[in-house]
């Protein structure tokens, strides 16, 4: 009898293509996605990819130039010594200044900058302390970049010092404090926040959650098909387009409410600075909710059963969020993966929230994100309408 149950269950699985895909293909897909992100070459924490650092040499001495050269030669760093391209797309000819470098970090062009003030060259390899300190400017939303730059700076300083005449005063200080070049770290954003990463995680989790939620709520279409209410609604004066728009508006308002609840909770419990950034938050929330709602409708119209919808939602939502930065910050991924992740509207949404809460950029800076997300929304709505044709008169 027990063998019968086992055999019967295997027979049913053999005849259910969707269940087979869920059982065997989805785990492989997830494994591959996470392996790419966290393993072989997907993120910056391995030797294959390099941390970008804007270097400003204010010292302009032989030693400081040797240090910059040593930094440039380091396989762990990608040294940027020129400002970003001008608005017309042509490379800037201006020299990189301390202010420009800080601005680049603020905007997220590079995760860190290294300032070598006048006199830094003379301090390299002194080990005596008290000399001019280098300054590492970091974006605290990237917890790795600053430490990496600090560490690699020491290696470059040792190389530069060895090339330029050796070390001084090695025996006079506590070995723990001895560095070939002392530096101090300066965070350009979020220094005053109690929990600077809360904004990032609130956005990440909220976006992922509303994608799941919209897919689940969109499944009401499948239930209505089964119960006959969809047929009844379509027999009335309301057409398929009207029905889908109604569902989309409902899902959009639901997603707005869900994001709002999450951020208010973040504000009350984790001191998330919601009120300071309310306009940007509202803009990003409305467009993100609209896109998530349309995305949910696509999944619902694509699926024939609740089971199919659940499988599809798990696969697509988790994959998009894995590469889109909800689980692991995009700025820690390789440049290639960062570019690939832009195929998901959620990556744009997270970028937008990050601009609002982290980079504190003006509302106009949200234009690319808002535009892209609205584009995704229109695309999803058209796709859902197309897929919903199967419910129309045959």
């Amino acid at each position, binding site marked *: 009898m027990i063998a019968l149950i086992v055999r019967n269950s295997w027979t049913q699985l053999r005849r259910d293509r969707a269940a087979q895909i869920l059982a065997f293909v989805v785990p492989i897909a997830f494994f591959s996605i996470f392996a790419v992100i966290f393993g072989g070459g997907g993120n910056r924490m391995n030797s294959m990819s390099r941390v970008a650092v804007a270097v400003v040499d204010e010292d302009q001495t032989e030693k400081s130039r040797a240090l910059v050269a040593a930094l440039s030669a380091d396989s762990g760093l990608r040294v940027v010594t020129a400002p970003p391209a001008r608005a017309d797309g042509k490379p800037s000819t201006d020299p990189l200044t301390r202010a420009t470098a800080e601005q680049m970090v603020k905007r997220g062009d590079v995760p860190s900058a290294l300032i070598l003030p006048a006199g830094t060259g003379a301090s390299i390899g002194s080990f005596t302390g008290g000399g001019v300190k280098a300054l590492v400017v970091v974006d605290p939303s990237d917890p790795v970049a600053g430490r990496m730059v600090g560490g690699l700076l020491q290696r470059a300083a040792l190389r530069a010092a060895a090339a330029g005449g050796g070390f001084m005063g090695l025996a006079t200080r506590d070995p723990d404090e001895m560095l070939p070049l002392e530096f101090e770290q300066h965070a350009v954003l979020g220094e005053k926040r109690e929990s600077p990463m809360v904004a990032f995680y609130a956005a990440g989790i909220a976006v992922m959650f509303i994608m799941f939620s919209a897919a689940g709520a969109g499944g009401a279409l499948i239930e209505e098909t089964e*119960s*006959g*209410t969809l*047929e*009844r*609604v*379509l*027999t*009335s*004066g*309301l*057409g398929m387009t009207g029905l889908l728009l109604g569902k989309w508006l409902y899902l959009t308002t639901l997603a707005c409410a869900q994001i709002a609840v999450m951020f208010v909770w973040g504000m009350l419990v984790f001191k998330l600075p919601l009120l300071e950034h309310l306009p940007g938050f509202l803009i990003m929330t409305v467009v993100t909710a609209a896109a998530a709602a349309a995305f949910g409708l696509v999944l619902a119209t694509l699926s024939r059963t609740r089971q199919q919808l659940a499988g599809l939602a798990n696969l697509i939502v988790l994959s998009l969020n894995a590469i889109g930065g909800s689980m692991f910050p995009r700025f820690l991924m390789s440049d290639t993966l960062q570019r690939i992740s832009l195929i998901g509207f959620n990556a744009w949404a997270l970028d937008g929230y990050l601009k609002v809460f982290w980079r504190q950029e003006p509302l106009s800076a949200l234009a690319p994100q808002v535009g892209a997300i609205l584009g995704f929304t229109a695309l999803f709505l058209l796709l859902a309408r197309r897929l919903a044709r199967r419910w*129309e*008169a*045959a």
Partner: protein
Amino acid sequence: MAVLEIRDARKSFGATRALAGLSLSLGEGELLGLLGPNGAGKTTLIRAIAGRVRLDGGTVALYGRTLEPEKPRPDLGVVPQENALYPLLTARENLETFGQLNGLDGKRLRERVAWALEWSGLAERAMSPVRTFSGGMKRRLNLACGVLHEPKLVLLDEPTVGVDPQSRESIYDMLGALRARGTSLLLTTHYLEEAEARCERIVVVDHGRAVAAGTLVELVEQAKLTGRRVRLSLDRTPERVPAGFARGEDAGTLTATINDVGRELPGLLARVQAEGLAVRDLEVRTASLQAVFLALTGKELRE
């Protein structure tokens, strides 16, 4: 003028021919029964009238006006076989939803909802969620949602399936009240005795066509089952079957088919008595709708 006129309706789904030139008409205030085996084309026909199926050929006309697929049909009410209701909404909310979808609003919506609650006997449960309703209550509400907007023609797909005799009676009372107002009803059912008792005319559909149409008497003639069936209950099971009889399904019964009751019945009874058998009960009846149905559509399983 006929309320509903269907002419030469044809529809195929791939290689399957669902409607193969079906025609029928329905008069004002009439209750027309649509019978047929599973897969005969009844549901496709209902969906075509409701605008949910595009015909490959033929026309559907309501009051002489040809209907286009997916265009609103304010004169039409549809009561699906499933209880197509929102289980988490109350009876009133369901009625309001479907009333508004069918163009009602404001005072008229309120009046019609109040009427529907009264008509379906659900006024006291107006504020209860539908998921708490019994099967019969859901059926009545399902019906009410389809007729709330006072359509002139109502399509009913198996409106009494799965309900107890009391609820069934109540549903037919509700349909009777609609007919009294002049509403025409087109009803599909597999309960043949129900169709026999309630419908004025019956259309038997098979293989996508109307194979017979008319009153029961007309159907009996069309099925060439005009003979009367005689069934005798005897005091014992006879050893020998008298001439003109066949053994009945139950022990101690004999059956025969005669065309003229007055002339043939006395001879039959005389032959039974000649065998020394005593007649305990005698039943003479015309062919049932079941017999007509099977004669017209055969006994072969369709699915």
